[in-house]
Structures are given as structure tokens and as C-alpha cells.
């Protein structure tokens, strides 16, 4: 610039504008809308995550059904709500633990199934249970135990209980 005073004056004016503008901000409505968008995105992510977990749950059950012997019993198909207390053991001589909650036990359930499958005996330990000395039971020799898993219609497993079938000598009595 030819006259250094011009640049200085302009610079002063620009600094004044910067200082005045420092107080400017978006309207409160923008923050409200942004927060609403945040919650919507969070909800969408949660839904997507649940769908993925449900799909994985369904896949796990399908695999379990394909690999091991299983038995599916539909619980009170006419009932709108699912109640674990309706579950009955196959035979009166079967011994079972209480239903133990799984990771998705807190997710509301409208209807579901009990899936019986064989799981490794080590699964008992992971629930803090000590494998019983049930030599002679049907599954002892195979290193598995029977388990009833409550699976909601959304594919999420809610609870599990372990079942011991009667020993042969008990059966004979």
C-alpha cells in the first residue's frame, strides 16, 4: 500500500469487527435442533446395534440347533406376554437350576421360546456352578450338559438354566 496509515486504520477496523463479533452466536433454537439431532442419531445407532445383536443371536441359535440336539417348545403361543414360570421340565425327574439372567435379560420381551440344547460342561463354571458328579447321565460321557435358553422373538437370549437328567439308576427306581 502506498500509505501505511491506510493499512493500519483498516487493520484497526478489522480488529474492532473481530472483537464485536466475538459475542455473536447461533440462536438457542439451533442448539435445541442440534441436540434433537444428536438424540435422534444416538437412537438410530442404538436401534442398529440392537438389530445387529439380534441377528447375531438368531444366528447363534440357528447354529446351535444345527450342531447339537435340541428341542424347541413353544410357550403359551396364545399369551401376549412371556413368563418364565410357565416353563416346565420335560419330566418330573429332571433337576434344573433356576433361570440365570443373561446379558439381555433387561430387554423387554413380548414372547419367546425355550430352546433346549447341549452346551459344554465348562459353561456351568462360567456361571459359578460346580458340575455335579453325574457319571452315568446321558450327557456326562459327551462332556456336555443340557441347558434351557429363553430366547425372545427378537432373537436375544434372556436367561438360561441347566438341566440334569436323572441318572440311570434313579430312572430305574
Amino acid at each position, binding site marked *: 500500500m502506498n500509505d501505511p496509515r*491506510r493499512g493500519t486504520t*483498516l487493520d484497526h477496523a*478489522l480488529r474492532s469487527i*473481530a472483537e464485536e463479533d466475538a459475542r455473536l452466536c447461533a*440462536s438457542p433454537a*439451533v442448539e435445541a435442533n442440534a*441436540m434433537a439431532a444428536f438424540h435422534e442419531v444416538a437412537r438410530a445407532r442404538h436401534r442398529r446395534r440392537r438389530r445387529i445383536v439380534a441377528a447375531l443371536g438368531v444366528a447363534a441359535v440357528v447354529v446351535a440347533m444345527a450342531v447339537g440336539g435340541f428341542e424347541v417348545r413353544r410357550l403359551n403361543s396364545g399369551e401376549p406376554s412371556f413368563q418364565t414360570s410357565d416353563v416346565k421340565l420335560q419330566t418330573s425327574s429332571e433337576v434344573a437350576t433356576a433361570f440365570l439372567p443373561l446379558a439381555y435379560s433387561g430387554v423387554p420381551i413380548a414372547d419367546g421360546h425355550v430352546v433346549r440344547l447341549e452346551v459344554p460342561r465348562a459353561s456351568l463354571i462360567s456361571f459359578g456352578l460346580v458340575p455335579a458328579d453325574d457319571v452315568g447321565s446321558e450327557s456326562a460321557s459327551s462332556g456336555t450338559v443340557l441347558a434351557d435358553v429363553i430366547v425372545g422373538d427378537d432373537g436375544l437370549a434372556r436367561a438360561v438354566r441347566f438341566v440334569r437328567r436323572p441318572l440311570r439308576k434313579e430312572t430305574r427306581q
Partner: protein
Amino acid sequence: MNDRGLLERVRRGDHEAFSQLYALYQSAIYRYAAHMCGAAAADDIVQDTFVAILRQPSRYDPARGPILGYLLGIARHYVSKRLAAGGHESPLDAFDPQGDRGAAAETLAPDTPLDAATRDELVAQVRDAIASLPPVYREAVVLCELQELDYASAAAIMRCPIGTVRSRLHRAKALLTAKLAERHGAAAVMMRPNR
């Protein structure tokens, strides 16, 4: 909490982190948008910018600069779209027919009334002059002078070399001075001291 940590918390759905991010940077985005598109559009651009961040929080790369630059880069995208949609101004990346090289050759009016204008009047005049600048030059003034970003940060936002930022800023200041001189040409003659 660094920028990356803050965005990571936003990505995980941390409401507090998003509130903090908004509180820290909304004003800077608003000011940039207001100068580039007007106050009426600035609110929308702030909102669009933060919604965009929500959708893709993982895209921020700390190696490319502070988060403000990243946010202003997103805002710039929306500013550019609005300018293009408006049709009355050239988009930010449009070719400048006079070229950035012309900055040094810009001639100024021989005298300006800047020294004689009162401060408030001058500030108002400079505001108007900034608003009337072509977007590419206005952006350089807004980022480097009003937002006080360094040339490197401004270059990252404007997606151009640092030298281009310098030349655009230089030319922008020359244009501002010329516009003010033009506006007050008569006054300048009247106020010129006798020598």
C-alpha cells in the same frame, strides 16, 4: 480433553461431549457463516455443520489440524452450496478472472477518508465493504483477520496453498481500501488537509 477425545465421546453418544463441542465452536462457525452468507443463513449452516459431525464423527483427522478447522471446512461446504444456489455470487472455488497474482498490482485510490472517519462509522463501512467482496476474498478476510486463524489453518480450510491465502488476503485488503475510498471519494477531497 483433546479434540480427538471429545469427538470420540461424541461418537459413542456422549451427550455432555456434544454439548461441550457445540459450546466451544458454534460461535466461530456462526461468525464465519454470517459473514459469508448473512445472519439469516448462519443459523442453518451452524446446525447443518453439527448434524454433519454427528453423522460422521470418525472422519476428523487430528493430523490435519485442530477441530475448528475441520468444523469450518464442513461449514464452508454448506456456505459454498448456498452461494452457488444463490447465483448472485461466485462460489468459493470459482476461478477468479483477475487472478490471485493481481494482488500486488492492485492500485489504491490516492487518498482515503479512513483517517477522518469516526471509529464506529469506519467499522460499519468496513463491514459493508467486507460483505461486498467476492466470496474468495471475503473468506480470506473472515478467516485470517476476523477469525484470526494462521495462514496454514486458513489454507487447510480453503483447500489452497498458503501463498494463495496470502495473496487473496492482500488483494482483499486492497479491495476494501479501494471500496472505502470510492465510497468517500468526495469526502476525502473535502477533508484533505491543505499542504
